Structures are given as C-alpha cells and as structure tokens.
C-alpha cells in the first residue's frame, strides 16, 4: 500500500509536545477480517482529532482499539501498543476496566439505558463503580449535564425515564454519561450521524467547549463536520492510515493523491 504521508510538525521535535494518546503499529482483526493494518498515530492533548475515510476502512475498529473495546468482538486479535500518558494500555499489569474509565466512548446511535431515569443514566457509571455519596453524585450529574448542554432542559425532570427524550437530547445524555466517570480522553464514533442538523450543530459547539479540558477523537463520515470541529485529521483507507496532519492542510492541500480524491468526492 502507499506510504504514509505526514506533515512535518511545525515545532521542533526535541520540544516536549504533549501527546495524550499514542498508537504504535496497531493492527487489528476480527472474525478473520483484517480491519486495521499497522497504524501509528499520535493524539495531541486538548485538541480534537478526526478520523475520516470511506465505509469499512477500519476507523471504527481502530477507535475501539484505543479503549480496549475491540477485544469484545468475535475472534478479535490485536498487535501493537497504545500508550496513554506513556503507559501501555495493553500490558498484562493493567486492568482493562480501569482504562475504560480513563477513556470514555460515545456511540453512533444514542443508547441511554432504557430502564433508568435521566439522573440514574448519568450517575450509572459512578454508582456501579462504587460511589455512594449522594452529594457527590448530585454534583457530578449536574456538572456533566451542564457540560453536555442538557441541564437547563432537564433539571426539573431528572427522574423521568431516559428514553423519553428526543434523539438529540438522548445523545447529549449519553455524552453526559460518558463524562461522568471523569475520563481524560473522549472517543466519539459518528456521534451526530443519526441526528438532525440543528442538534448536530449543538453537539459540535459542545465539542468545541469540551476541547478545552479533554482530548477528543471523533470518527466521522461527514467531511464538513471534520473541517468545522477538528484540529487534526487522519484519513484511513482499507485499514491503512494514508495521511495525517492539520485539518486545514488535509482539506486545502492534501499531499497524498488518494486523500485528495477522497476529500473531493472522486471515489467510485
């Protein structure tokens, strides 16, 4: 396959650049299909990185490798290293559950727990991990709902069932739920693809706010969304990372021909 084309970083490489999450030579497969082929990426702290690519190029699988959700798939295999703050996530000494609490995930289709109220949904991660202090739970729930931009809409109805909200509100509820366990990294798998444009816009604004404190990695089909929301973009095709760089550069002047063809819609 074609070689990876990377932009040289502007800063001097001897400087201490804050990379929150580093993936080194990650290859993954499930059910016999090789989905990710030797991808190496570095994700900057307090920045949004987008992964784009056509369907089936392995971006969702790669995302799941970052918080050890991939191993739950059928016949899943994975090689390579994923370093969070320098520590290998896949080493035998580390409990996968602990890492999943540091790296939160939001899924494509909003999936609030159906039998729980809004409050319980957000507090679920905390409660089931042993937090019992009601005061702390209240504080966290309020803080997370405020960050997700949902507090003013639901503050009087916290005991209502989570499934009673609209699609966009449900997705924001899921984001609040993911934030409640105080992660450091937030992974988002096509978070707005099932939502209407106005809700998507609200969620994009929210991402821009969250960027100040979290590292966010977003997989998206929508290239306009990638240009609006992300600082860095990686293009994946057939399991390979084809090009990675600043969003402005990828979309204004892509170095790789496949990337140029994809972003301009010339893929067959």
């Amino acid at each position, binding site marked *: 396959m074609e070689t990876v084309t990377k932009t040289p970083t502007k800063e001097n490489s001897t400087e201490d650049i804050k990379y929150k999450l580093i993936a080194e030579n990650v290859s993954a497969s499930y059910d016999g299909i090789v989905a990710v082929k030797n991808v190496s990426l570095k994700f900057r702290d307090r920045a949004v990185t987008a992964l784009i690519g056509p369907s089936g190029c392995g971006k969702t699988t790669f995302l799941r490798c970052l918080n050890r959700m991939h191993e*739950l798939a059928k016949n899943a295999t994975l090689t390579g290293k994923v370093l969070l703050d320098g520590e290998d996530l896949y080493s035998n000494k580390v409990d996968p559950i602990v890492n999943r609490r540091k790296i939160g995930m939001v899924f494509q289709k909003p999936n609030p727990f159906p039998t729980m109220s809004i409050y319980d949904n957000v507090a679920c991660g905390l409660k089931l991990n042993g937090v019992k202090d009601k005061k702390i739970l209240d504080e966290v729930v309020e803080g997370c709902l405020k960050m997700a931009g949902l507090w003013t809409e639901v503050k009087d109805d916290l*005991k209502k069932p989570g499934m009673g909200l609209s699609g966009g509100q449900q997705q924001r509820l899921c984001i609040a739920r993911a934030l409640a366990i105080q992660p450091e990294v937030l992974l988002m798998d096509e978070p707005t693809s099932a939502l209407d444009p106005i809700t998507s816009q609200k969620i994009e604004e929210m991402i821009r706010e969250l960027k100040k404190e979290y590292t966010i990695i977003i997989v998206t089909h929508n290239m306009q969304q990638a240009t609006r929301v992300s600082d860095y973009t990686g293009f994946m095709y057939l399991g390979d990372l084809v090009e990675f760089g600043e969003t402005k550069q990828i979309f204004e002047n892509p170095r790789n021909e496949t990337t140029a063809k994809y972003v301009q819609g010339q893929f067959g």
Partner: protein
Amino acid sequence: MITPEQRAEFRKHFRYNVGRRIVLDKIVKVIVFSCVIIAIVPLVAILINTISNGAAALSWQFLTEIPGAVGSDEPGGIGPAIQGTIALIGVSSLIGVPIGVMGGIFLSEYGNNRYGRTVRFFNDVLAEFPTIVIGVFAFVLIVLTVGNFSLWAGSFALSIVMLPIIMRTTEESLKLVPVTYREAGYALGIRRYRVVFTIVLSSAKNGLITGILLAVARIAGETAPLVFTILGSSQFISGLDGPVDALPLRIWRLSSLPYDSAVTQGWGAAFILILMVLTINIGVRYIFLRSKEKRIIKLRKLGAAS
C-alpha cells in the same frame, strides 16, 4: 434509464382485476378471524363449563375445610389442597427460579461456545421430558431414600419441570436486549457481571417475568409428578417432610369418585385452580411491571406538595 414509453409498456403487464383481489382479501380476513374464534372457543367453553358446574360447590367451608369422609353428608372442602398447591408452587419457585434465571444468563452471555451449545441441547431435551418420568425419578431419588412422601419431594420434581422453561425464556429475553446497551456499559468501565445484572437484566424484566409466570402456571397444573411424590392427604401441611395435598391431585381423586357431590367438588376445585393461576399472572404483572410508573407519580405528588 427507463423511458416513459417503456414504463407505460411495463404497466400494461400488471394485473388490474382489483375487484377479485378485494374479494380475496375479505375471504382471507374471514378465514383468519374464524380460526381465532375456533381457537378461543375451547378456552371459553372450559371456563363456562367449569364455572357453571363448580359454582354450586363454592362456599367458605369449601375453601377452608379439610375433605370429609367419602360419600358422607359432610363433604368438607379442599382447604389442604389449596394450601398444598400454594406451598408447592412457592417452594418449587424458590428452587427453580434462581437456578433457571442463572442458567439463562449463562447461556445468553457466556454460552456462545461448544459448552454452551451442549447445555442448551440438554435443556431443550429436558423441556420435552414426560413429566411422569420426572415424577418417578423424584420418587426413586427422594421418596424411597427418605422413606416417605413429602412436600419437598414434590417441589423438587416440579422445579425440574419448571427449570428448562425458565432457562429458555430467560435466555431469549436477554438476547433481545440490544448489544448497544451492553457496549455502553462496558465503555463506562463497568465490570461484566454488573453490566449483566444491573443493566441487561432490568431491560429484559418483562420477558423474564413472563417466562417465570408461564412456568408457574404450568407447574400449578401438573399432576403426574405429584402422584409419586406427595401422595396427597386430607390434612393441612404439617411440615416439609410430610405428605401434602395439591389441587390437581385432588381434582383427579374427586372426579374419579362415583358420588355426585364429589364430582361437583371436583369442578369447584378446578375453578379454584384456574382462578389461582389467573390471579398470580395478573397480580405479579401489576406489582412488577406497573409499579415503577406509580412510584414515580407518587413521588412527584409528594414533591409538589412539599
């Protein structure tokens, strides 16, 4: 591209005898409805039959007294039988429900391998087992070893009958819970067993309750296993160890007697049995499945008042 001329050409080939299709539609509707009615008729007939024949025997004495001497003027009642059935259902559920639900959880969450397939196969075989064989098995295992007929032998046999039903329905209900809820749980860093017990199980609540109620209704009416294990008696329960009476058993005994009064009592007992199963069904649903909304409404009212 299909041109307008081609479209017109193709349309000519459709069948346009709409009249015939409307008639056919109506005929099929009638057939389907009549099948439904044919299916319901036996149920309604049984209910009417039971009520009309058994109503004569109903009275407070009937429900609470012990059976009197056969053929005498004081026929007594079926009190012990009612108590026995309730006790049997209770103890069997105590054994069968936890094991069945756990088994269902195993099959659904951890059973996608050869071991799980084997367990599933044996479960299906057990579900089809003739219950009289199960009764004989309990007889040999418990009654002969211990030396007497007993309540817990009967419960043991009945729990074997209810186990495969609960396992199967639990597994099916759990499988219906979409994978995304489990994934959301894992992504929050919640351990697997907590995800299953807190999130998945509560989502599958409806199916689970239905399965359990089905099993309970089934065993409430099972007679064959009881024949070999509880013996039946004319006294109220004296302990887990002693023989006990049950409604299906009593109905069978009463209806085989030549006396009219006994037969009427048999009908009455049958009516009571049907009533019991219906009450369990409706009651449990009301408690488990409606309660949450009612509790929420209550809390809101309290909140508004304070």
